[in-house]
């Protein structure tokens, strides 16, 4: 997969990440299924990718007063240590097992969404 295609995929997902709409998940799907990266490697790159992408868009979100600061602080305080523990668990798994769990997670997400739409 060429670097140019990767950059294009990164840009498209960056716009969605900036909007807070799961652009990172889409990039992860792209890297896992299209670029055929090992699941753990793709996940590591996806995490690194989100940092500058979200930082640039976050500047605008703060400037526009769109961030609920207190809620964000509390959620981040709870989320960060648990994310570290979960990352530790994920990196202890075999890549194939991690990929299968990731696939199941995607299916669950889609079914959950379909359930909501049928209400």
């Amino acid at each position: 997969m060429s670097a140019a295609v990767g950059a294009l995929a990164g840009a498209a997902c960056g716009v969605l990440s900036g909007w807070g709409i799961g652009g990172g998940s889409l990039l992860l799907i792209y890297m896992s299924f299209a670029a055929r990266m090992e699941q753990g490697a793709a996940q590591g790159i996806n995490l690194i990718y989100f940092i500058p992408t979200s930082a640039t868009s976050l500047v605008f979100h703060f400037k526009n007063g769109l961030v609920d600061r207190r809620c964000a602080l509390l959620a981040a305080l709870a989320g960060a240590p648990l994310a570290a523990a979960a990352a530790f668990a994920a990196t202890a798994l075999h890549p194939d097992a991690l990929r299968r769990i990731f696939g199941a997670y995607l299916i669950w997400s889609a079914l959950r969404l379909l359930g909501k739409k049928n209400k």
Partner: protein
Amino acid sequence: MEMNGRRKLRCLLAGAAAGILNGFFGGGGGMVLVPMLENLCGVEEKRAFATSVAVMLPVCVVSAAIYALRIGIDLRAALPYLAGGLAGGFLGGVTFRRVPASLLRYVFAALMIYGGVRALL
């Protein structure tokens, strides 16, 4: 919005759920966090999208550090995505206020369906 004890707990819970998923799957925390911020924490839809970005940034920094220490991260392979992501993130931030909330919801829904279908194939 007023921050009473119950709402504090809900914000902590939303962050915890998003952190676990994002750390384990290396992404996807925002997809869970946005609806939780809306339905559980009472954050208005558009603010929920922006607030989720603010939560996921530190969560991703911590998770990335663990991945880098445990299995390593190929920064050379990440470079094209990072370059594109910087431009896209800037564009996303600039255009965010001009995008109607309903469109955000549809794009969000389409992404989740796409991911599910790809996993099934």
